[in-house]
């Protein structure tokens, strides 16, 4: 057996072991109650490894059947990953109805633009369509998570450490997947082993982040979200605050323009 293949099998085995550890942590800490889709994702990645082992054992890795099987399973995994990410976003933002409505529209729109751009620049290479689409979706997931965290930071929303680290893991994995995928598209099959090893390593790092997040997670608390005020009251308060911000801004502008006219 060649050295790269041994390394690949070894990392594969270790990753599978850590996936099992992650899922057992999910069960032991009862994370499936608060994050059912993430728990499902934890289970699905284990099943993906099992299905990959099955495919390698019974199908020719260079056949079209193997290709179709592997990418079909991957499509299911990516869909569940998307759902797990939206589950986290909902847990972070949905308690704030105004922010959630606005952020969800913006994030979905931004994701759609990124998806359209990614597919458009990939060209009409049908042989690369699947990897291009896969990369586009991963880029969307990464941008969605970063956008969500930026919204939460801007509005100073409290995020539980578990949500923060799960989102970080998803985002890092997606970004590294995009980089790996681009490397693979550039160097082709000559970089296949490197691509595979890098993918496994990035997923391995993500698994470590998730396991650590779940192990350190405290029992979920009853979150007290603010009760929304009426649209009318919000409008009035917001208008007043805006007018005060404008006054301060004008004051600063006045200061600057006087200075400029003098100098």
């Amino acid at each position, binding site marked *: 057996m060649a050295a790269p293949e041994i390394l690949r099998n070894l990392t594969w085995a270790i990753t599978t072991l850590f996936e099992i550890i992650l899922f057992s942590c999910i069960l032991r800490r009862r994370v499936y109650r608060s994050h059912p889709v993430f728990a499902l994702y934890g289970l699905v990645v284990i099943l993906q490894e099992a299905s990959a082992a099955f495919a390698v054992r019974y199908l020719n890795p260079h056949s079209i059947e193997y290709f179709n099987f592997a990418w079909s399973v991957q499509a299911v995994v990516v869909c569940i990953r998307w759902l797990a990410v939206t589950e986290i976003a909902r847990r972070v933002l949905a308690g704030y109805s105004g*922010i959630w409505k606005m952020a969800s529209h913006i994030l979905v729109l931004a994701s759609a633009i990124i998806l359209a751009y990614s597919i458009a620049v990939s060209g009409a290479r049908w042989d690369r369509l699947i990897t291009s689409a896969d990369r586009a979706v991963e880029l969307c997931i990464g941008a969605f998570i970063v956008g969500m965290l930026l919204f939460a930071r801007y509005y100073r929303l409290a*995020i539980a450490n578990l949500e923060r680290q799960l989102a970080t893991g998803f985002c890092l994995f997606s*970004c590294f997947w*995009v980089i790996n995928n681009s490397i693979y598209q550039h160097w082709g099959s000559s970089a296949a082993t490197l691509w595979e090893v890098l993918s496994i390593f990035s997923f391995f790092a993500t698994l470590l982040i998730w396991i650590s997040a779940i192990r350190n997670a405290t029992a979920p*608390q009853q979150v007290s979200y*603010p009760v929304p*005020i009426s649209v009318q009251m919000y409008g009035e308060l917001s208008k007043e605050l*805006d007018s005060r911000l404008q006054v301060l801004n004008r004051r600063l502008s*006045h200061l600057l323009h*006087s200075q400029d006219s003098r100098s």
Partner: protein
Amino acid sequence: MSLPLLLFILLAVFLVFLLGLAAKSPKGLPLTSEEVIDALSQERHYARLPQILQSLREDDTDFLRRRGHLELLSQIRGERKRIALRFLHYLEKEYQLLLEASRILATLAPELSAIGEYERLKRNLRFVLLCRYLRWRLRLGLQPWNAFGSISDMAGEMTLKLEMATAQLGERALMAADFPSFLNKGRNGPE
């Protein structure tokens, strides 16, 4: 490597960089709405600055130059610089307080206008950048004395308007039936 591929890699790296910024917990606990209303209702330090600035007009120091008291003139100019920087500091502080209030308000809003929030963000960025720019100009010795003089002329009226707006804001907020329910928002966040 083709440009689109390079762009994908750069975009992914940029996302990782943004993630590093966005995933950090904000410094300090966010203010509660009670603290914001309380702070808005108090008299702000900078409200007294018009009177201070009035005494710092350009013509106030002209006679020193004419009489050759250059050392005293430079000392007064140093003081002016310090006061001008303090003015900017308070202006910025109040701006941040208002922004904090608008963020708390956003968490209570049944719906938000993306354009309105974008305008506020843009205004905030502009304000922060202008403040930094002015601060550096002042530090480099390019003091906008005349500007401070004219500000002191208009500040009386401005301050009155601000005080009225603050009082209204405090009153309306306290009158809202739902208001107490979010007083401890941010302290009871999920952990």
